[in-house]
């Protein structure tokens, strides 16, 4: 059962294989037991990962890209923002806590991914039932599916607010602006505030990630203090109205074209018109919507 979770969000499409190479290189440097062994877009995974054929691996992103490690103890999932209303692509990594897992290295992995993946937001956390939002636990980070926890931090949810402060957090330019600027983030009462680049920070609540499970009072106190400092109305459960960055959707940025035969709703039409007015050239239509495929 996975218990260590990383999720990274970026405005990048992530289709550039160089970004993929960087991600996999960083996983190899910091958490080699999490390197891909098998990959595909449906399970069971149909392809054996071969670093010498990296482009084949990364072009799996034409759909969604899933992988798992050799020991079946860790998985990776990449979702690129191909939908018209999508604002962020994401990378999810999760794994079991075992002897091969280097917990401190996860924090370094998350930080090192910040600049090359142009992270807007990132979370690193261990599972704890108090962080479940199901069954009345009152948390905001995790859901459960058949008893297996999953990190419930979604692109869609981020349009409303951040879920919570995780143990490790990357805040990129949209969030630094939301919080009131770099100085506000720099002075957050966290155990570690590292500046990863212009308007991009890594915040860590305590000195040891195992505090998530082993010292909940320390974690909660640090979390509450950081939330208060950054703006409680940016986080789920905070005083309304909640705030979130308004990021442009793929259609608005000229990254999406309607499939032929698709009836474009008015709100999407507005975004497409906006992209056209700004001189953005959308990609060719990805396909054709067949109204009735019955022979």
């Amino acid at each position: 059962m996975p218990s260590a979770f990383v999720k990274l969000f970026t405005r990048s499409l992530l289709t550039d294989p160089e970004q993929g190479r960087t991600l996999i290189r960083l996983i190899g440097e910091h958490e080699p037991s999490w390197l891909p062994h098998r990959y595909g877009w449906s399970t069971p995974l149909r392809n054996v990962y071969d670093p010498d054929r990296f482009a084949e691996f990364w072009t799996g992103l034409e759909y969604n890209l899933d992988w798992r490690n050799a020991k079946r103890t860790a998985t990776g999932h990449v979702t690129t923002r191909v939908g018209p209303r999508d604002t962020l692509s994401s990378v999810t990594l999760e794994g079991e806590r075992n002897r091969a897992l280097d917990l401190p290295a996860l924090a370094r992995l998350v930080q090192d991914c910040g600049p090359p993946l142009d992270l807007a937001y990132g979370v690193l956390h261990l599972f704890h039932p108090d962080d479940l939002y199901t069954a009345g636990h009152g948390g905001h980070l995790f859901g459960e599916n058949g008893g297996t926890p999953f990190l419930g931090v979604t692109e869609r949810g981020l349009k409303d607010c951040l879920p919570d402060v995780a143990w490790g957090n990357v805040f990129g330019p949209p969030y630094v602006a939301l919080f009131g600027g770099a100085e506000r983030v720099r002075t957050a009462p966290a155990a570690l505030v590292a500046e990863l680049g212009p308007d991009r920070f890594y915040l860590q609540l305590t000195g040891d990630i195992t505090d998530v499970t082993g010292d909940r009072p320390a974690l909660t106190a640090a979390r509450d203090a950081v939330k208060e400092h950054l703006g409680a109305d940016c986080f789920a459960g905070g005083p309304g109205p909640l705030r979130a960055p308004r990021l442009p959707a793929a259609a608005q940025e000229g990254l999406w074209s309607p499939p032929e035969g698709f009836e474009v709703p008015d709100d999407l039409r507005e975004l497409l018109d906006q992209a056209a007015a700004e001189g953005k050239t959308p990609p060719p239509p990805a396909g054709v919507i067949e109204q009735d495929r019955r022979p």
Partner: protein
Amino acid sequence: MSQEFHLVTRERPPGAALRRALRDATGAQAAEPEVDGDFDNPNAYLNVSGPGLWIEMEPPGHVEAADLDGSYGDDVTLPEPDGDRCLWLTIANVPAGAPAGSAETARRAFEDLASRYDGIAATPG
């Protein structure tokens, strides 16, 4: 509601065998089904269509046998894995809007192929 059928074999079934099994399953009077897509690409989709027929297929993929454990009923015995501890998995998905008879064609074609290639045809879950 869509229906899914799996074919699990030790050897990789060839594309010609799939076409023949589909043709046989549709009946002698039916026109030969059209199979669009790259059968040799395990990450592709095959679109199988014909009069009264619509099946989406995932071509054979070389998957680890352990990944199939528990995928089927207790009465289903998987073939012996190959030297790589893998088996070939082919998936037929009959979309919810497919013409009646499509599911039966998929099931019969996979049972035919299972008997020819020492495999099993099964419904996941």
